[in-house]
């Protein structure tokens, strides 16, 4: 007995009902060109989500290749031997055949490579990664809607993202940027090199994409929930996406004005960030980090939402502390606006530093609430150890390390030593990659059957996951040691004592590459020749599992009515499952 009512309710259809079954959203049109046009002008959130997904994954690989170049350069320190420079691997890559007599060209190349890695990863990959791809696809499905609130705005968001990314690629091909992805003044405002203005404009444009997506999601969650779905009947992925959208709307305009002022500073020398004209470079840092700190929570919150949902489904257990997790998402969003100064301890005054340090400790609390609730959910659950679940466990391990290593950085006394060292680099890679990317992989594998109607190869997925996990830890755990021993970040060279750790780290990065290549192969194989996916392979209870795999164009044949909670595994037979396969009397083991 299904408990989600998708049957026609007695005669009441209203003006919009009775669509019947259309083809899946992936069905091609009459000709190849017609299909391209269909995708180019679509306002269907699913198609837009898929386009974002492919763009994000492609740019992830591009930025990943840049990261591999960074790690390759750091295999050997740079030295002068017999009047010639040795150890600059990137130099021989970019200036083949030339002899380096000074380190400058090689260092410039290195600066550009790591800046581009950071800028592409932050602005073009991680920020839109989960909200714009999986969020776009599943937010309307999970609340039982036909689409997001403003579908045309969604398409505009996508095109703004494309244009912004093209600006970014233009900046790269025209010589790149050396300032670091943070564009600190005065380096970014006063020096005549590279394409800072282009890159800054790219980030400005991408900000608009983020704002419009966030706006869309907030209105969608407020106004388009299916009948019967109150706020506390929503899946936790929706809560997380909602909190993310609020941050996107409130924080992104500030980076807009910051980058605008930076452009004015560069072009017209208005002097707002220039001490010689009466300005203040630390003001730039305040402006920049007022956005860039909340944005890291934009990066992680949807990932946490994915973990909540995937974990509950894959352990077939009611999530522990639903309301606590829901409110902690909002709490993280709120506190995230209060802590930006912890990126600037070494440039701020003492009073402000103390205040920011204290507030930063506060933000660990809602995060810890989530982690404890997840672990409690796992306890006595029926855990299916498949690729999504493996990635959930990987997330729990890596994100906890990342979060805990944030605490020495929040403490002023230790931060004085760790600021701008590899400790920071390791910390944020653990939370951003060990957090967001692992959650993205978990979500991708969990929802792959729903999105594309194909199962992926489970063994391949597991192999990829293990390779990624091993490679990640080898790469980044060593960087904690590098950091505490004093290796500064953004340096192309280093003291000989650090070489072993750097080499270990580089080896790890190539293992990471292997892991992701395995995943790429598994996904391509799945799309071409994967087994057809059932409508509800994992037994989830949320509304997206009611729809077809892949969903039809209008998501549901009729507006669903919600009669059960999203995680009531002990009392509900999952949609499309035969009650004979899901005897509820056995599921009563974890009553509470």
């Amino acid at each position: 007995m299904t408990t989600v009512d998708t049957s026609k309710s007695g005669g009441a259809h209203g003006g919009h009902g009775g669509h019947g079954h259309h083809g899946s959203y992936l069905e091609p049109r009459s000709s190849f060109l017609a299909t391209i046009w269909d995708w180019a002008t679509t306002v269907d959130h699913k198609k837009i989500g898929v386009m974002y997904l492919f763009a994000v994954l492609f740019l992830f690989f591009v930025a990943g290749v840049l990261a591999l170049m960074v790690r390759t350069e750091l295999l050997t320190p740079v030295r002068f031997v017999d009047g010639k420079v040795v150890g600059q691997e990137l130099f021989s890559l970019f200036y083949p055949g030339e002899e380096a007599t000074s380190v400058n060209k090689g260092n410039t190349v290195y600066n550009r490579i790591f800046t581009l890695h950071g800028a592409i990863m932050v602005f073009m990959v991680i920020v839109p990664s989960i909200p714009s791809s999986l969020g776009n696809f599943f937010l309307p499905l999970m609340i039982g809607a036909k689409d997001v609130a403003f579908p045309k705005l969604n398409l505009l968001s996508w095109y703004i993202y494309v244009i912004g990314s093209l600006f970014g690629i233009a900046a790269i091909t025209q010589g790149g940027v050396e300032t670091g992805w943070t564009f600190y003044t005065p380096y970014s405002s006063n020096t005549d090199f590279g394409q800072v203005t282009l890159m800054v404009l790219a980030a400005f444009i991408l900000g608009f994409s983020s704002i419009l997506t966030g706006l869309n999601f907030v209105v969608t969650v407020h106004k388009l929930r299916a009948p019967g779905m109150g706020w506390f009947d929503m899946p936790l992925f929706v809560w997380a996406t909602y909190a993310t959208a609020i941050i996107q709307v409130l924080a992104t305009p500030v980076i807009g004005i910051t980058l605008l002022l930076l452009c004015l500073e560069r072009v017209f020398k208005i002097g707002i960030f220039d001490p010689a004209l009466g300005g203040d470079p630390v003001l730039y840092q305040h402006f920049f980090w007022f956005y860039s700190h909340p944005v890291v929570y934009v990066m992680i919150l949807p990932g946490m939402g994915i973990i909540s949902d995937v974990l509950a489904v894959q352990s077939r257990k009611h999530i522990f502390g639903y309301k606590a997790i829901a409110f902690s998402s909002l709490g993280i969003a709120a506190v995230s606006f209060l802590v930006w100064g912890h990126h600037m301890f070494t440039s701020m005054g003492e009073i402000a530093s103390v205040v920011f340090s204290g507030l930063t400790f506060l933000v660990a609390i809602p995060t810890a609430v989530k982690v404890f609730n997840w672990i409690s959910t796992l306890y006595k659950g029926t855990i299916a150890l498949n690729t999504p679940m493996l990635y959930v466990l990987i997330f729990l391990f890596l994100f906890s390390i990342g979060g805990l290593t944030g605490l020495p950085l929040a403490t002023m006394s230790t931060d004085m030593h760790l600021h701008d060292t590899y400790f920071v680099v390791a910390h944020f890679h653990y939370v951003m990659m060990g957090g967001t990317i692992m959650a993205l992989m978990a979500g991708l594998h969990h929802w792959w059957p729903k999105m594309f109607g194909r199962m992926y190869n489970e063994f391949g997925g597991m192999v990829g996951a293990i390779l990624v996990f091993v490679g990640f830890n080898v790469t980044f755990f060593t960087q904690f040691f590098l950091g505490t021993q004093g290796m500064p970040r953004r340096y192309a060279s280093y003291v000989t004592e650090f070489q072993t750790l750097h080499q270990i780290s580089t080896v790890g990065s190539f293992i990471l590459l292997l892991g992701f290549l395995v995943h790429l192969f598994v996904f391509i194989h799945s799309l071409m020749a994967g087994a057809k996916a059932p409508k509800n392979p994992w037994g989830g209870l949320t509304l997206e599992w009611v729809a077809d795999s892949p969903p039809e164009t209008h998501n549901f044949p009729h507006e669903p009515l919600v009669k059960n909670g999203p995680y009531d595994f002990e009392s509900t037979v999952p949609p499309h499952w035969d009650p004979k396969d899901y005897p509820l009397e056995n599921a009563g083991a974890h009553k509470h």
Partner: protein
Amino acid sequence: MSTVNSTHEHQSSGGGVPYKKYKHAHHWRSQSEEFDAVKLGFWLFLATEVLLFGGIFCAYAIFRMMHPEAWKEGSSALDWRWGGLNTVVLLLSSYTMAASIFAVQTGQFARAKRNLLITLFCGCLFVAIKMTFEYIPKWSGFFFILDPSLATYKAAAVEGKTAFMGLFQYVEGYGGKRPGELFTHPFAKDPNVPMWWSVYYSGTALHALHVIIGMILIARVYIKLGKGHYGPTYYSGVEIAGLYWHLVDLIWIFLFPLLYLIH
């Protein structure tokens, strides 16, 4: 069908009035829900605009804290009468915008169009006053010949040095009030005064840009109103343009005292 064109179905059955046949997008249950959602969405967008200007206000506050003498000198160079006139112009335009919404809601189309035109005219007047009487004299030293404050600078007016077909008269030692490195006014007393001008120009220029965007939105509404797209049963577009215009007014309500009145 979910392509770009499918949400707004106009029945072109022989000269029907579009607003009467407006069909809400298919994913909404009713038109009133759609209207509510559109409003919420636009308020969220207005929130982003407020935060955008927030950066400028923050820069103002911080630099005022750091360079109070420069701020005193800089704001004394601004004429509160032009700022006040601009304020009155914008407030009036806000009123006429709200009045035009009222007119559309009650089906008085001629009145609505008239009010929209007045709003547009006020917007143009705002930009014109700003350019002619504030930006151009301060930047270059050229006063409009009908400018009342030209009388006070009669002594410094350079005879014969005019520009733009004699419409602008050059006054010695007044111009050069430019942002940052471009500052060339020779009589500045405080060395940080160029910062004042940076904040002034970036704030007011960004605001003027939004005035122009608002005018474009209103012009679009005016044209669509003429074609009968809006009426008592469907007027979201007018409402949206109105909200944007009121935001522009709101920002000026804060910019005016900060720049012109606080000394």
